[in-house]
């Protein structure tokens, strides 16, 4: 799952397209106006919905179209990584990086690198239990204690 900001990284991804650069197809991009909009709930939602890795790409520090949104994203990113490791999710599954609107190569390299990293780690395989382990969802009279 990739969260790309409208002004820089999404433009970089488009630039990769204009230059017909081929990269791994297993990334799904969601466009936001600024990485400042990206919050931990989005990342967790992505993992919960089946993403094996999450990539947040924003403007380079100092270049944020909205001045400082990318710094807020950076702050949340580091704390979220720490919390994710406590959840047993490898740190490499979440990555934040900076790609400007002209950095087609950097975009492609970042995607390919991330895909390779995730492939090496394997699928996330979060088993969000619908119920506690091993018990059927239907109520059964004869399992009374």
């Amino acid at each position, binding site marked *: 799952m990739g969260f790309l900001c409208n002004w820089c990284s999404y433009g970089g991804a488009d630039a990769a397209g204009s230059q*017909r650069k081929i990269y791994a*197809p297993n990334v799904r991009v969601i466009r936001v106006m600024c990485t400042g909009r990206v919050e931990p709930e989005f990342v967790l*939602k992505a993992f919960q919905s089946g993403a094996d890795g999450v990539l947040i790409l924003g403007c380079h520090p100092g270049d944020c*179209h909205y001045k400082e949104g990318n710094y807020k994203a950076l702050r949340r990113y580091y704390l979220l990584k720490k919390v994710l490791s406590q959840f047993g999710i490898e740190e490499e599954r979440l990555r934040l990086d900076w790609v400007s609107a002209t950095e087609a190569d950097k975009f492609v390299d970042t995607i390919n690198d991330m895909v390779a990293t995730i492939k090496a780690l394997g699928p996330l395989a979060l088993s969000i239990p619908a119920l506690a382990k091993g018990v059927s969802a239907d109520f059964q009279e004869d399992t009374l204690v």
Partner: protein
Amino acid sequence: MKSKVGVYICSCGTNISDNLDFDELVSFTSSLEDVAYAKVHSLFCSEDGKNFLADDIIKESPDRVVIAACSPKEHEKTFRDVLQKAGVNPYLFQMVNIREQVAWVTDDKAAATEKAKAYIRAAVRRVSLNEPLEKKEIACNTDAVVIGAGPAGMESALLLAKAGRKVYLVEKNSFIGGRPARYEDVFPKMECASCMLEPGMDEVLHNEHIELFTCSEVRDITGFLGNFSVNIKKKATYVDKEKCIGCGTCYDACPVKVKNEFDYNLSERKAIYVPYTGALPNVPVIDEKNCLRMKGEDVICKEAFDLGLITQEEYEKNKTRECSLCKQACMFDAINYDDKEEIVLKDAGGIIVATGFELFDPAVLFQFGYGKIPEVYTSLEFERILSQTGPTAGKLLMKDSREPESVAIVHCVGSRDNNHHEYCSGVCCLYALKFARLIKKHLPSTSIYHIYADWCVPGKDNQAFLDSVKAEGNIRFIHTSLPMRADIMQEDANINILCTDVSGKKQEIFADMVILCPAMVPSKDTPALSNLLGITKSTDGFFAEGHTKLAPVSSNIEGIYIAGCAQGPKDIQGSVAQGAAAAGQVLSTLVPGRKLELEAASAEIDENSCSGCMTCIGLCPYKAITFDKEKKVSVINAALCKGCGTCVAACPSGSIKGKHFTDQQIFAEIEEVLK
């Protein structure tokens, strides 16, 4: 709730259809729940395509529209306009990028098709959650406050006045013209500075649209673009501008003599004074700190009488009272001792900050001897010496009235020096050459030394200027390395200067006078003004421009512009250009009769949900969020919000809605695209 989603898929000629299974994509899309139909076209962005789209939408009247084509950065606006004209709210629309981010970057057709399907499926789900946002407008004031009446500020004021806007020009000094009011000539054409500035200054004083406040400061501002309220403090000057004709009789009468700061203490002035002959407005002010009456001293009359400044009669009349010599001398009753400080409130739509620069104080670099050795001057001090209105009436004289036989000019003092200012101020080499030329003009046989690190002479005429000064001869150039270091010591009647040139050789010279070219630094009110207005500074202390290349006169606050040396060191030409640019910003953003359009996809705080935790307030770079102390909730000013969503993400109780990028919309997109 079921939506009727109309999907339009573009083949972009064959750009898209060549690289994925187009038919499969179309049939997949048609089969999606909520999708009423999936139609194709080879080029939706063409006139034909747009017409097809508009007509079809009118015919089919879908609730929502999805267009799968190129990047939204390419044509989202195009299609939003089409939808608007076809009667569909432009925000009930989602654009899917299946060209730049799918067809053009995937070589496996099957994978590309899957990716495109996922994106379309996600967009269909997301668009059902989109809301029909309406663009809002607010009325705006089209007048401006300009802070600083130097070249930049005056240019802004004049252009705005020309367009009929009211300009409130606030100047902290008693005179206008800024730094150049101190110069005799300006490089590279060696024009007379006052002649150059005079017409503009005159216009500033007499233009009916410009209200000039001298000896004034901006104390507070509230509001936002188009709706500022500015609080101006007018100091008491004790002289009525309307009555005074500038004859100068009052300052002749004043018995107090103090150092004149305009001349950097190289000359004296009275307690009632104009800083220099020809200062505009030509109205003196009373210096409260030194005026005997204001200080409460009444011994003056006796002293004045003893000095023969007043007659016996005047002495008898005045001796038991406070000094009123200036008032008595004035034939136009222009002096008013009861003048008080006044606070004036003005409304404006835009603010231009043109507060200029000062020089780095070279006293901290002990080796240069500034402040210890009497004949070591800064460039601005030397400008006064050269000026006809200065301490020596323009004659090149040392403090003991001798003519200097040798003058050394030291470049880069405190500049290009990581311990002080790492930047180059860009004008010093040029005025150093100006000095050389003027020294030669006054005293042709005086030797001149330039101790320099590099020649910074960009621009159309400046290289030629350097060449012509060099060609005059009798100038010795000592090329040193950075940072500029020279040991300057007083040795008997001479000044001894020791430095090392680039080849490592020690150079020793003797001079009668030394002129230092210090770095240009932001004027000392910059930090306070930065806090007051909420505009950011860059690491070097100057006000930060919005973008180095593309927004040189914008600040981080909409409606507040910066111009001239307040933004960074530059020459007069640069300051005037920025002054004009800032005026241009005001003229184009605030148009009489036109309302300001606000970002529709902005953030909104529900006051029934907000708990007043204030987490969001410090996060907004546009200061769009304030705290309502009565309701104890945070409030977003829709006129300032740019819709970045930073506050939306940070709100710990989820009370800020990021319109068009709500949690629900993004969650839906995430869920659907990963299925």
